[in-house]
């Protein structure tokens, strides 16, 4: 007996979301993916869409993200999650599908699918985790890897003359007429994590209001593949990544902006 059994608390300030599965994840220490999953689970709980949410996982570190929620989920081939989610939403407008895609998945092999899901303005939600590296395969250059950044396939740092330039997906996609809401947030400190949650919630509310496509790009640390300790990795996100990928809203329709007042 610890004596704690009879301890009563005045109120619960923080607990595990009901939508989040009670199991360990495969994410490395210091990785941002676990935070993203938790934020999504909190939003699904708060919006009371547990029995309508569908997690469309993709390939990369997001591959088994369906395992960490308590609601339905499925695999999709590399880059194709927006196509899979499109079909689910078209067939079942009452469901709330969202994709979780990394930068290799969304900004490289899945460019056609993400551009066209935006162009069609499909009424679904894209969660784009940008950690500027191929994590699952061991740290190769991603389309979002910064100039001079080390990766296992740019051992001397990414050089534009041979490896091109990093892609700003949110800015590119914001030129299209289809999306209702596109924003970029970051996980590098608690204040930004809270902003990230608000963005995710607004994205889901945009879908629930039937306003069209919503996309949240989340800058996320990958200390293992960046070969940094977790604190340095957060500093890298705050310093270097936000320079290349400025935070903020790139597109928000008037109707979506009205949803902000009761976030």
């Amino acid at each position, binding site marked *: 007996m610890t004596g704690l059994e009879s301890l009563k608390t005045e109120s619960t300030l923080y607990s595990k979301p009901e939508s989040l599965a009670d199991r360990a994840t495969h994410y490395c220490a210091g990785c941002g993916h676990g935070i993203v999953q938790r934020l999504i689970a909190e939003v699904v709980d708060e919006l009371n869409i547990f029995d309508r949410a569908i997690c469309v996982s993709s390939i990369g570190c997001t591959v088994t993200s369906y395992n960490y929620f308590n609601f*339905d989920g499925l695999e999709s*081939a590399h880059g194709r999650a927006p*196509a899979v989610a499109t079909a689910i939403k078209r067939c079942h407008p009452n469901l709330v599908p969202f994709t979780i895609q990394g930068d290799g998945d969304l900004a490289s092999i899945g460019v056609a699918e993400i551009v066209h899901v935006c162009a069609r303005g499909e009424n679904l939600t894209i969660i784009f985790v940008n950690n500027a590296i191929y994590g699952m395969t061991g740290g190769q250059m991603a389309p979002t890897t910064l100039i001079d950044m080390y990766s296992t396939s740019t051992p001397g740092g990414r050089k534009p003359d041979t490896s091109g330039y990093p892609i700003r997906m949110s800015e590119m996609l914001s030129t299209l007429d289809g999306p209702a809401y596109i924003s970029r947030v970051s996980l590098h400190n608690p204040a930004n994590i809270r902003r990230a949650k608000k963005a995710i919630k607004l994205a889901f509310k945009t879908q629930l209001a039937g306003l069209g496509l919503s996309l949240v790009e989340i800058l996320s640390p990958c200390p293992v593949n960046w070969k940094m300790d977790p604190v340095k990795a957060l500093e890298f996100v705050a310093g270097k990544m936000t320079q290349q990928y400025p935070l903020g809203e790139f597109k928000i329709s008037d109707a979506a902006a009205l949803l902000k007042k009761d976030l």
Partner: protein
Amino acid sequence: MPDKKILMGGNIAIAEGAILAGCHAYFGYPITPQNEILEHMSKRMSEEGRVFVQTESELAAINMVYGAAASGCRAMTSTSSPGFSLQQEGISYMSGSELPGVIVNVMRGGPGLGNIGGAQGDYFQATKGGGHGDYKVITLAPASVQEMMDLTMLAFDLADKYRNPVIVLADGFLGQAMEPVVIRKAVTALPEKKWAVSGTKGRQKNIINSFEMDPAAFPGRVKVLLDKFDRMQKDEVRFEDINLEDASIALIAYGSASRAALTAMNLARSKGIKVGLLRPVTLFPFPYNAIKKLANKIDRFIVAELSAGQLIEDVRIAAGTEMKIDLVARYGGAPMTAEDIIEAIEKAM
């Protein structure tokens, strides 16, 4: 009263067959010679209050079929050979994830961009898996416009029965053909799909995937699929046999090549040559046993195909290495005539 017949194009018959079968969602990308399916569906699916999306690529189309199927709906895409190559990834994922769905391939001449004339050069790709990994897909080969409709309908049933994709393997000649068709009755009762990802209301969550993190567990998952393919081979073989009782020569052909073979058989019979025809309707599962039995009582097979020697490999497996088998091959989008086959029959005499 006899069934009323309507003159219909082959590609249209596929589209209407899908609608009759309860196909709730169609996804496609333009490619000749199957564009009539996409165009017809764009009109008809909206009339029926169902889902139609013209996709950005054949890749997106097959992955939309994957998504629609995962959510419990009957879904279809149609394409032609180069697009079919692109769809192999998605078909592999569907088989690995045990998802039903129908893929129509109205074949054209290949390899590469090839030619828009009808061909059967995707036989291997359709019947031997086609994408990565250990899987098979039931492959149905229509030989008339009526069968374009009927086999498309059957494809949906078999896909649901086995939770595996099914291919309707037609060719450009059949796609463009016009023939009288009896319109079938619409399917009204669709199977319940408790495994679908359709929201967790009132049940535990469902997951659709082909991925297995544990290397020790994955062979067991593949074995489940392999057992299914064995059941298909045992229970789903379909073929048509004509005039084989007294035949000394058996023609083997499917799809539009079988139409030329049928005419050649009749011409040969009128000259007193005992020729029969075995027409596989399922290319996987292949009628190995029927051909093996036939090999014991006839002198020779003549395989007629719109490809450069693909079907003949399965005939060889069935008939054995000693059997005489001739090949009449037209490829690269060239049509086959009865005369081509008659020539081979007379040469064999």
